[in-house]
């Protein structure tokens, strides 16, 4: 794995403008019986797709989409990183939604997937444009803080720390955390429960 700068994602999009989509729906628990993330992509939204032939992930016109457009509180529930892994392996490289659950958002950033937010009215316009023409190209621009499509552009929000991490290519935190080994040891010496609660 190597770090790389994520400054923008361009491509077609798939609209799934539902609220409170939980990670059990993104990847049902039975597919977590695995020791690698390989092969999760084909099971993204497996049960929703089985129950709804018209589900966007079943529609050929959205095949190959790089941007997922979702609703409010996307990715709530389980902390399973299998969820953004499944979306990424299906082909999603960026997500545009009204809001995200916190653990899911962090997991996306840790995989280099920008997850930006749009105001609801603009999100609905975007979804309608994609429905009308699935070949329309969407640009998620992290540096400009915008999502562009056709003639439209909307302000896209992303917490500054995630934006900086993605655009600087420093979204793999492991190497940064490792670099501070001395400070970690120093901090540990000041924590009461690591030193006999202040005893001699």
């Amino acid at each position, binding site marked *: 794995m190597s770090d790389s700068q994520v400054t923008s994602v361009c491509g077609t999009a798939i609209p799934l403008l*539902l*609220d*409170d989509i*939980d990670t*059990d*729906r993104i990847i*049902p*628990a*039975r597919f*977590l*019986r*695995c*020791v*690698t993330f390989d092969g999760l992509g084909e099971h993204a939204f497996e*049960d*929703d797709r*089985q*129950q709804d032939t018209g589900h966007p992930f079943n529609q050929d016109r959205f095949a190959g989409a790089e941007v997922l457009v979702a609703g*409010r*509180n996307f990715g*709530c*529930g*389980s*902390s*399973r*990183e*299998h969820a953004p892994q499944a979306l990424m392996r299906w082909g999603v490289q960026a997500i545009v939604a009204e809001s*995200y*659950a*916190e*653990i899911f958002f*962090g*997991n996306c950033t*840790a995989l280099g997937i920008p997850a930006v937010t749009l105001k609801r009215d603009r999100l609905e316009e975007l979804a309608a444009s994609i429905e009308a023409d699935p070949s329309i190209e969407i640009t998620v621009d992290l540096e400009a803080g915008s999502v562009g499509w056709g003639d439209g552009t909307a302000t896209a929000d992303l*917490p*500054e*720390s*995630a934006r*900086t*991490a993605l655009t*600087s290519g*420093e979204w793999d*935190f*492991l190497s*940064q*955390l*490792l670099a*501070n*080994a001395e*400070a*970690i040891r120093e*901090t*540990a010496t000041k*924590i*009461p*429960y690591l030193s*006999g*609660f*202040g*005893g001699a």
Partner: protein
Amino acid sequence: MNQSNASSSGSRNLFDTVWDQHTVGQLAAGQTQLFIGQHLVHEVTSPQAFEMLRDRGLGVMCPERTLATVDHIIPTDDQARPFADGLAEEMMSAIERNCVEFGIELLGLDDPRQGIVHVVGPELGLTQPGITLVCGDSHTSTHGAFGAIALGIGTSQVAQVLATQTLAMNRPRVRRIEVTGSLADGVFAKDVILAIIRQLGVQGGVGFAYEYAGNVFDEMDMEERMTVCNMSIEGGARCGYVNPDSRTVEFLRGLPAVPEGEEFERAAAWWLSLASGPDATFDDHVTIDGTAIEPTVTWGINPGQSVGVGESIPAAGDYPVEDQAGVLEALEFMGLESGQPIQGQPIDVAFIGSCTNSRLSDLREAAAVASGRRVADGVRALVVPGSQQVSEQAEAEGLDRVFSDAGFQWRAAGCSMCLAMNPDKLQGREMCASSSNRNFKGRQGSPTGRTLLMSPAMVAAAAIKGHVTDVRELAEAAG
């Protein structure tokens, strides 16, 4: 002897005190690098993390502050190895191999301390006030009951904590949720958290840590506090906590991982000093009248879609416009009608278990309802204790006989039908009264299976009657 920062009482809240104490520094992008005092590991979210360490040639920084157990995939009936499910066996073998290779203690099936990770940590005394605790599991919020900062994390973060004992995190805001008064008879901790989520919404807590306070929490025992903190994540809050008090201290006294003698007294003094002071400030404050909380039942497909047991199922029009599509989706999936009383709704399955409600006090409450009665014809009822220790204590009290005599299946410890990664699953469109934490579509193992969340006592009542029942009516009948 007292190392506690003088500013930790008075105007500071517990969260800020503990966060600052564990702060290693700031990363380039602005996140805090946070030291982690205890890391709990289970078989589902760890194999890829260990692989990441292998890929980079890294070891585990603090194996002595890391403990693994197995809970999600293990069968609760026939536990002979190899498991009938080859994929589960592969995961079990992987965690056994990883723990040996990386020098981490594993509480496997042959260890009497094995159980659901969020039941085991507190039982062993690993969960203590003032620590930071993480696990690759969203219900890690459970451990906040002790006044810890307890966070669910993803697998990449599991790898980070294994390798560095630290985590990159943005500091959340803190919302104090005060529940006043006392709970009525037949109203439990589960009802309190369902009521909180109903009021604040399933995403109301995003970006917040929840501090639970007020007389209702003062009166709760530690297991009840764990039930509430457990479902913080269902309200969007990644962590929730209760300030440590004398109940916290007495719960911890004598547990295996807790210091003894003079060191215990020093520990207790420090723990109590961490509690948010009377003038502590918060980013937000919510007050809820505890006396008004009823036994609560979910009717929908997220834990915020609930009603009191005396209420009827709402209509889409009862909700703000932006929520109405979700309400309609839920009603359709659940096959329920607006205006229908939730009481009387037939069930097919009753599940008592999960990291929310599988501790000894939960089993006692359910057994009190089941005692001397019979599970209704056509209802499949399971009791799955949260750990081998819970199982042993329950058996010593004869609770297993109470359940078996009433027609419940008494199983071995694990996560079981909460998320159905093991063979315990709903079939088809079965409707399940469940003491677990999530009523998401397909959560209990059948893509079309349906879940009604409620307290363990309410699940027992539903099992006996064959439909959703106000547990207070059964209590009166018995009394």
